[in-house]
């Protein structure tokens, strides 16, 4: 697991004030919403804000694409990395 994976997991736990979850329990390729971690639509808004604050990422104005990036930790890592290489 890269540092970025861990960093994003910590960001999610902290931002969303999750109880009973530690980083080792968030699986890289498991869905974050509904099944898997079971996050909700408000969590999605919060993660969007946190990505902006921490990495300066503005989500593309397309819910479909955003939904893909929010699908798992791996997808989020990809989003942050692609933003960094710009």
């Amino acid at each position, binding site marked *: 697991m890269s540092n970025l994976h861990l960093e994003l997991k910590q960001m999610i736990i902290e931002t*969303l*004030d*999750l*109880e*009973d979850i530690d980083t080792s*329990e968030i699986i890289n390729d498991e869905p974050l919403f*509904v099944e898997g971690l*079971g*996050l*909700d*639509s*408000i969590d*999605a*808004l*919060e993660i*969007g*804000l946190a990505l*902006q604050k921490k990495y*300066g990422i*503005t*989500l*593309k*104005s*397309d*819910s*479909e694409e*955003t939904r893909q990036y929010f699908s798992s930790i791996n997808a989020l890592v990809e989003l942050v990395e692609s933003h960094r290489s710009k």
Partner: protein
Amino acid sequence: MAKITPLSHWLTAAPNNIIAVHIDSTRHIDSTVTTEDFLLRVQCWFETLNKHEGSRWALYHSDAFEFLAILFALWQLKRTACTPGDNRPGTLKRLTTHVDGFVGEFPGEAITACDIPEGRSDLKPWRTLMPEFLALEIYTSGSTGEPKPIGKTIAQLEQEIEVLESRWPSLPGSVTLATVSHQHIYGMMFRLLWPFCVGQAFSRQICQYPEDILHQAKPHRSFSLISSPSHLGRLNVSMNWKSLSGHCRYVISSAAPLKREDSLLVSQLLNAQIFEIYGSSETGAIAWRTQQEHHTDALWQPLPKVSLAPDTDGTLCVTSPYLGTANSFSLPDRVEFNRSNQFKLIGRVDRIVKIEGKRVSLTAIEQQLLENTLVKNAKALTVERKRVETAAVIELTSEGWRQLKSHGRKPLIKTLKGILAQHFEAVILPRRWRFVEQLPYNQQGKLPLDILQSMFIDEPVKWPKIIHQQVSDNQLTIQCYIPAELIYFDGHFDNNPILPGITQVHWAEAFGRQLLSVTGSFEGLEAIKFQKVIPPGQQISINLTYDETQNKLRFQYASQNGVHSSGRICFG
């Protein structure tokens, strides 16, 4: 003020308008639908639905335009649209016995598409709808825990639209955007039916993220935004809101009070006025307010034609032209009026709460939990952390304890959340869970909310939660509850946590010094017995007697299961 085409006459009048706008996800095509498209679509749904019988139909569709076309087709067939807030399995199951069929985005045996007529058939001669026709049945959380159906006639909907239009006259050519769903009555009125009746186009899609607002608003010279505190409280300030400056006519927020600072911030970002709406599913919109700089929280004032007054019990009594057959309606919100008929909201009188603007009955959460064989007793409450969320305190059955002991908290929480997810939207599900041997009822048989809430405080827990204490000269009785989060349970023992004996002695000494004026230094222990273990969640009575002449403190930990421990602490 734009001309209103009432819902009852809309199809016969068919004003030539752009009905809705849509931004394609490829993000290059903006498409619009006109009155002609709408009439064809209504016809298509009419033909399809006409092949089926039944006077009550459940309707769910995420595309606002499609929803509206189905709605009008149902109305033409003199059928009532039953519109649930979501299409979750539990919601469907509950609706099954109430409706004759399902139309829209439902799984199973629903009508999901309409058959496009071959060739172009002539449009129907549409009928005018009767004012008393029961157009809608919506559902809201009732205090019994059961969802409460609320009927709306065409006349009620029309009169509310008239009032809204008189307060906020629309601007033809302006577009209505929304972050809220039209499946709920607030969204349905504000983002769909009202714009539709005044010839203002609405957006077919919801803005899920702040970025979507920016994107959807961009092509339009003028727009208004129908939103809620969940979104307005989380706008990303670093986005290019300036690009919209001068284009936003106003923002409407409802579903829950918007924080003053959020209201002012959004107003500044969008360079627009923010109007908050207060209302309920039962009454529709009844009051509004706008926060002002340099003021404290703005007061609410009634909408035109609505009269509001405090009821004898301090709740709000509503009289309005759109209450249907009722002359007046009392809302379970406590209010305080000033002399100019403005008021502030003080809180609910029942166990209905709003989580991110979604109304939910805590009783309903408890009832669903109790259906399960793992749960013996349940208490749902709200806790305010980073956001206001629901939490649950659970007294488990023996089967529940067995599962907790053998598999741990997480699988158990997952199971319980899974049960609730059948019936409630994700934002409403409890995010924090506590499992106790016994709910901490006090001597009056009540469950004090502050004790329940204290179970969700994160600071390291080092003391029992005191429910009641009684002190006489040299005697002390403390009724308390042993929190499962107590730090002394850590590693003592992993699979079978019990309250350490040394902690019991330490508490006895501390309470003795604090409440019975025990003095002197600790010398030793006498007649110490630890007879029964004290597990997390246990309710216990700590009994202390101070023998001043011998300078000894006698302690006893007891519960309904008998004496757990006893002994004497000697002081020198």
